[in-house]
């Protein structure tokens, strides 16, 4: 006797997935197809004159040295933001996991920054580091260092990385804390009895058991650094000085919404989409192999 439940409805399964499919179609496939179509057009801002230009927009972009440089800037920015946000969050989560008294208060405080809008986070950091009136810049001046991210590209990059990572740490923290909580005490205690110190326990036991969380967060953080950070760049540096913090997504925003050049902007978002798809595929193919569920 077959015990499996067999559903004889032909339509019901489709109806059940229909809402999700509809949302994906309307909010992902439709805009993406619009971007694809727009990227092969040259159009004035009002849409009065439209010309089909094949791949001219892409050709012009890839011939632009500033645009190619933007790839390097994006790589540095994304890797730095992801690395900083993950390590800082992991450090804080392991600390918070060990706290016994007032744990709830610590956790709540550490989660707070996530509620801050990217542009606001950017402005907060900008005020701290403003070369003329910023309090951190002032403190640095007292110890003999003249902070000026308006002219120094490296300092500008450091500032936007700090602002972008700071905002993401809370999100990562929540996941790490949950992941740590899921690791059985008995395993760790057993290792401790066998003579493994805290460092060794962390590397040999905690980290491997945490790897699904790490993998998930790497994917999410890379996507965050690629897509969600233009508000911070916009508020803090505007891509400057001299293009030192001009990441790809900020240029999409700038050319499309400020410059009203929809064709080039769409072409850039298509390239960006391809890059992120490629990165995600690579992560799932190669990084996931080292994950133990």
């Amino acid at each position, binding site marked *: 006797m077959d015990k499996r439940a067999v559903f004889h409805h032909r339509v019901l399964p489709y109806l059940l997935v229909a809402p999700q499919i509809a949302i994906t179609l309307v909010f992902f496939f439709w805009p993406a197809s619009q971007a694809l179509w727009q990227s092969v057009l*040259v*159009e*004035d*801002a*009002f*849409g*009065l*004159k439209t*010309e089909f230009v094949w791949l001219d927009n892409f050709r*012009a972009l890839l011939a*632009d040295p*500033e645009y190619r440089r933007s790839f390097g800037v994006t790589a540095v920015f994304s890797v730095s933001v992801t690395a900083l946000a993950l390590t800082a969050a992991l450090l804080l989560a392991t600390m918070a996991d060990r706290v016994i008294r007032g744990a709830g208060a610590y956790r709540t405080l550490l989660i707070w920054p996530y509620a801050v809008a990217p542009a606001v986070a950017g402005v907060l950091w900008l005020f701290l580091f403003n070369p*003329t*009136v910023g309090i951190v810049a002032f403190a640095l001046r007292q110890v003999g260092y003249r902070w000026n991210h*308006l*002219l*120094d*590209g490296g300092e500008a990059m450091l500032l936007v990385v700090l602002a972008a990572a700071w905002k993401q740490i809370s999100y990562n923290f929540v996941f790490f804390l949950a992941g740590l909580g899921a690791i059985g005490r008995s395993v760790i205690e057993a290792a401790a009895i066998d003579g493994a110190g805290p460092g060794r326990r962390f590397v040999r036991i905690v980290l491997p058991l945490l790897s699904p969380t790490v993998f998930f967060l790497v994917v999410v953080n890379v996507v965050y650094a690629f897509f969600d950070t233009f508000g911070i760049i916009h508020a803090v540096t*505007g*891509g*400057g*000085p*001299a*293009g030192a913090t001009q990441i790809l997504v900020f240029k999409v925003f*700038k*050319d499309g*919404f*400020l*410059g*009203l*050049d929809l*064709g*080039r902007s769409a072409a850039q978002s298509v390239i960006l989409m391809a890059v992120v798809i490629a990165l995600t595929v690579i992560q799932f193919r190669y990084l996931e192999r080292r994950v133990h569920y």
Partner: protein
Amino acid sequence: MLKRVSRWSGIAVVAGLLVAGSAGAGRAQTEVMVWHAMGGALGEKVKALADAFNASQSEYRVNAVYKGNYAETMTGAIAAFRARQHPHVVQVFEVGTATMMAARGAIKPVYELMAEAREPFDPGAYLPAVTGYYTTADGKMLSLPFNSSTPVLYYNKDAFRKAGLDPARPPRTWPEVGQTGQKLQAAGLPCGFTTDWQSWIQLENFSAWHNVPFATRANGFGGLDAELRFNSPRHVRHIAQIADWQKTKLFDYGGRRNEATVKFTNGDCGMLTESSAGYAGIKRTARFEFGIGPLPYWPDVPGAPQNTIIGGASLWVMAGHSPSAYRGVARFFSYLASPEVQADWHQFTGYLPITRAAYELTRKQGFYEKNPGTEVAILQMTGKPPTEHSKGVRLGNMVQIRDVIDEELEAVWAGKKSPREALDAAVQRGNELLRQFERANR
């Protein structure tokens, strides 16, 4: 069941009443929708203007709505036009002029609007230095200048006194700025001078002030095929001079927009080149006596100083609305341009008056005596009739071109590129943007 029906019918009745009510109001008053980008105190002033106009007559009702900053307002109006939900009037910043002008099917030129609405309109009553920016080569006004300003030199009189300089005599020329800056630094100031809006002041206005082209085809007024020219030896020398000063902090870069103002108001820099519209803000924050002088120039350039050009925004009328709404817009524009309204706006905001009558009225009211320095901007703009190099700048993709200029100038201030290299690169990159715009708007 009965209950549900009655509830729905109740809603239907209410909705019907609302529709009927709004339709009734629509018959009595024609609504004119104005989208603007004036936040804070300026936004309240715009609302007061609209309210006063609405109270002055009963036929039309102007609804002034704040839509965010300049870029957001313009992008919003364009998106609305694509969806055919656009307002009657939209405030567009000066760098958007070429985009609006090129969109012939999307806008209604002001001269046409006034003629069709039979509204009295005399182009000769306006100050050509202000309206020229928004006028065709043959003198037809396309948009109504609303808030216009021009760059001037602010200087710290207290610091001048401390350095043994005459506080009544600001430096007139760039070499004098250098000498003055040295003396200010010798007296203990960390920086001599700084500038806001570097592209607008140090290149666009620099070109007009010295009567040299910023771009060919009369800075773009003559056609979309203009090419940038701001890498001439005169431009290079000016930028090289400032770059040289950056090394000793005689000049200190403060940011792309008006972030440098704070370096002046907190007393770090003794001089600042900034828009005349920055007056109110500086007056509020500076805890020292300050003066205003004209923008400095190079004395060895023949014909300098010519006249400076404006920045700010103008009101564009959008196409596709009813004649009765356009009559309302025309009436509102006449109201805005009337001497009393203009004089009040000019004195309240620090923006330039757009008509001669408003200027005369302000002078008669004794405003310039009571607020020394506020007349400098007007004198500087009206000193000589504008030439083809000093009428304004009308280039497509100007927002991105300014970004390119900002990037390249930052490379110069940081010592990463020579002034010549940077300006050549900016011209070359800017020309590509111009060709892109030309292609999209052919």
